[in-house]
């Protein structure tokens, strides 16, 4: 680096100026700000530290302002945004920590290790709160599977999650995957972890108490990912990304497992003042954040950091992103005991410095000062921007869709087969059977249901968890799409019998310096916030991933919502599958003529367009209420929400659940709208329930009393999926029943189950 900021290479008579700030990804304005803070020019190390901490990835400088819109308070919230993970109260003296995070760019470069280290990172986030990680979820987006590289990426990511998560002994219990061209060059890998702890034992990432010890524990520090996660995640993909390759790291799940066990042993003691993971921006971030949060300072000597490689400079030590490390702040005098705890597990630990009272983060090398900056200026006083936002022009075109021009396919059964065979709707078993989703014997509803359910041993309670987000909706109408993401997640949780508690999220977008992208971002947040308020599920944390672009083309705006729900009585849990022949099938909610943004429109008509389905939050709240009430009374034998693929696909899924292909249904739809919209439209706020004949009238009465439309669709039968249509005219006159489809479920099941394996052969 060129310390003066001027000079540079001489080219003929011209001087090529290569300003210092550009080398660390900052602007001239930001550089001036640093000068103001320090009252002098920063040295190289200091500038490097600012460069990292003020990168978008670490500082949220383009998103911070907008994220403030999220509702973050609620009865159950013990820890909202600001710490490494959110924490909610689940009663019985217990609390749950959870968070969702992206590892998109590393996974695009090295899918196995990128995804694996993503798991490592999110697990440490939960661990820092003092919680025992108990489950993982993964939310994935890729290009189309016809492309060889996409298959390589998809396969690599799934095995990376499998390799790391399984080795850690954490069940991966749910997630989602969508395939769309927009992710071809920029796949998304979002991972969520949830952890369990005693309510009174929340640990924070704070370095308080002058004289307390600052320790690094876990793996040794190497030259991994210098400028990695942060810079890589703070820029778009282009030719230069190739050069940044060494930024990718290799994960060591065995080390992480030891780190988890030893840290949990440590937080049981009362020696711990604070804990922070060493993630993006490594020591720089952990030190400045813990000191920043506590309003304290810190003095750290890089020579004391255990190293894997020789000859590392202070710059490299401070910026290294070596995995499987933690920073712990320990009460003075307890250092030896802490060392003992870690060496029992065969791990390194070292005191690298002390908490100070001067607010400065001071870095030494063998006692000689090499940097000193106000700690909070790195972490909490990074610049915040309110950049220009502009509604994208494409929206005018794309949302125009005249449904009348679309032919109604004659063979509805054929359409259903095509949809079930599409990678976006087919079974995800190919993915989750590679994950150990049962280890720890808490998983009570396995992957494949609307949400996974975990028991909380010793309480009789259950946790329901899911991730959701339909980016095509967000592309067509970000505000509605954002609201739907939250509503659908809540609905999924409700379908298991759980009450939605709170959400976390990951917002994956393009380059926020483009006004159109930032407009989408803001709209999505508005939509999510409105829905989160309506549903009473505050946002406890999350993550933003910008610059998801390839050569200037952004991905669809892709918010992913991670929802946590609570079942007071786990014996009341509900699954999607039809249970018994003769049970009555009921549809809660209203089916409108809504084909915009549907999977059907895309697969069958090759169109991405129109408006996404309408989101009536009041109705949503009522539908969920009816569901939960009915479940509480023990009327509901199965429940499944209607989402991608519409009613026909949802009914098929209900048939596939238990003994594959054994169940069936005979359904008659009465409506005045187009048959394809009835079968494959994606109207929101709909749930398929089954009840015993005896409970039918009580359920219908209750729905009526809460102003929720509830119609009897038909009955559970053996082995066939049969759907008939009765058209109701304007005058209320009804046609005779016309059979739309009548298919052996066994055959449908095979198609559905092979959707992914077929492509991945």
């Amino acid at each position, binding site marked *: 680096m060129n310390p003066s900021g001027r000079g540079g290479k001489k080219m003929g008579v011209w001087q090529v100026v290569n300003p210092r700030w550009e080398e660390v990804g900052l602007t001239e304005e930001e550089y001036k700000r640093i000068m103001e803070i320090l009252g002098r020019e920063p040295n190289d190390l200091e500038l490097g530290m600012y460069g990292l901490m003020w990168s978008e990835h670490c500082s949220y400088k383009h998103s911070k302002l907008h994220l403030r819109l999220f509702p973050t308070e609620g009865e159950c919230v013990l820890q909202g945004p600001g710490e490494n993970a959110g924490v909610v109260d689940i009663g019985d003296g217990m609390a749950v920590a959870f968070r969702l995070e992206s590892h998109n760019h590393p996974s695009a470069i090295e899918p196995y290790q990128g995804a694996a280290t993503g798991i490592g990172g999110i697990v440490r986030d939960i661990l820092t709160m003092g919680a025992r990680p108990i489950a993982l979820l993964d939310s994935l987006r890729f290009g189309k599977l016809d492309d060889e590289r996409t298959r390589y990426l998809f396969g690599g990511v799934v095995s990376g999650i499998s390799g790391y998560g399984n080795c850690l002994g954490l069940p991966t219990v749910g997630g989602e995957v969508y395939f769309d061209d927009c992710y071809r060059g920029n796949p998304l890998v979002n991972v969520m972890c949830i952890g369990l702890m005693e309510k009174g034992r929340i640990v924070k990432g704070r370095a308080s108490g002058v004289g307390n010890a600052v320790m690094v524990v876990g793996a040794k520090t190497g*030259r*991994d990912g210098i400028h990695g996660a942060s810079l890589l995640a703070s820029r778009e993909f282009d030719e230069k990304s190739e050069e940044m*390759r*060494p930024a990718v790291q*290799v*994960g060591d799940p*065995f080390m992480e497992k030891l780190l988890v066990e030893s840290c949990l042993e440590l937080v049981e003691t009362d020696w711990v003042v604070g804990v922070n993971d060493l993630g993006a921006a490594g020591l720089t971030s952990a030190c400045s954040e813990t000191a920043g949060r506590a309003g304290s300072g810190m003095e750290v000597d890089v020579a004391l950091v255990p190293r*894997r*490689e020789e000859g590392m400079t202070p710059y490299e030590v401070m910026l290294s992103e070596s995995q499987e490390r933690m920073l712990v702040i320990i009460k003075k005098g307890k250092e030896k005991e802490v060392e003992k705890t870690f060496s029992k597990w*065969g791990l390194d630990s070292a005191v690298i410095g002390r908490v100070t009272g001067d607010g400065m983060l001071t870095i030494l090398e063998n006692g000689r000062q090499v940097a000193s900056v106000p700690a909070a200026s790195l972490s909490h006083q990074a610049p915040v921007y309110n950049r220009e936002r502009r509604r994208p022009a494409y929206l005018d075109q794309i949302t125009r869709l005249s449904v009348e021009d679309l032919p109604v396919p004659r063979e509805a059964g054929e359409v259903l087969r095509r949809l079930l065979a599409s990678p976006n709707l087919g079974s995800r078993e190919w993915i989750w059977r590679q994950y150990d989703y049962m280890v720890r014997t808490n998983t009570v509803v396995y992957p494949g249901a609307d949400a996974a359910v975990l028991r909380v041993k010793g309480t009789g309670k259950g946790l329901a968890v899911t991730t959701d987000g339909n980016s095509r909706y967000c592309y067509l109408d970000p505000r509605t799409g954002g609201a739907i993401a939250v509503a659908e997640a809540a609905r999924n949780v409700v379908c298991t019998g759980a009450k939605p508690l709170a959400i976390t999220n990951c917002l994956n977008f393009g380059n926020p310096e483009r006004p159109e992208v930032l407009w989408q971002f803001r709209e999505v947040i508005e939509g999510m916030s409105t829905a989160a308020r309506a549903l009473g599920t505050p946002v406890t944390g999350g993550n933003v991933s910008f610059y998801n672009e390839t050569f200037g083309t952004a991905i669809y705006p892709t918010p992913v919502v991670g929802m946590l729900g609570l079942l007071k009585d786990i014996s009341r849990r509900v699954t999607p599958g039809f249970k018994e022949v003769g049970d009555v099938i009921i549809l809660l909610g209203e089916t409108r003529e809504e084909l915009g943004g549907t999977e059907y429109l895309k697969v069958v008509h090759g169109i991405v367009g129109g408006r996404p389905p309408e989101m009536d939050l009041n109705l949503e709240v009522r539908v969920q209420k009816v569901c939960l009430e009915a479940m509480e009374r023990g009327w509901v034998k199965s429940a499944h929400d209607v989402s991608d693929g519409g009613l026909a696909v949802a009914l098929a899924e209900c048939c596939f659940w238990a003994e594959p292909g054994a169940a069936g249904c005979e359904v008659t739809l009465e409506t005045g709208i187009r048959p394809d919209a009835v079968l494959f439209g994606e109207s929101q706020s709909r749930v398929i329930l089954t009840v015993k004949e005896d409970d039918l009238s009580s359920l219908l009465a209750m729905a009526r009393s809460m102003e929720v439309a509830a119609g009897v669709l038909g009955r559970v039968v053996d082995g066939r999926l049969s759907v008939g249509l009765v058209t109701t005219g304007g005058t209320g006159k009804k046609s005779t029943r016309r059979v739309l489809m009548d298919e052996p479920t066994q055959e449908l099941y095979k198609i559905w189950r092979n959707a992914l394996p077929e492509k991945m052969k």
Partner: protein
Amino acid sequence: MWLARVYVTLKKGILDPQGATLERALGSLGYKNISQVRVGKYMEITLEEPDRDKAQDQVDEMCRRLLANPVIEDYSFFLEEKAGVQGKKGWQDAEGTADQERRRQ
């Protein structure tokens, strides 16, 4: 007929968890005089290709395209001449001599 022996190792400086764990394990078995343990992959591939240079280039290409991940791994390989007799398998039987070696980092 050639027998290509391909070695794939993690790039220098990249964490090698297997190597580190193995080194500790050997240490606790009492082998105190060992260090710098690295674990990588070893592959044997038989090639039907009359021209040595072409064989060389092909193996190199296969390494770059599939056998190694250039992001984190280095590779190198040897070519050995192999009697064109069917039924002889793997390098255990190879009577060829070590050919020039290739490396990419």
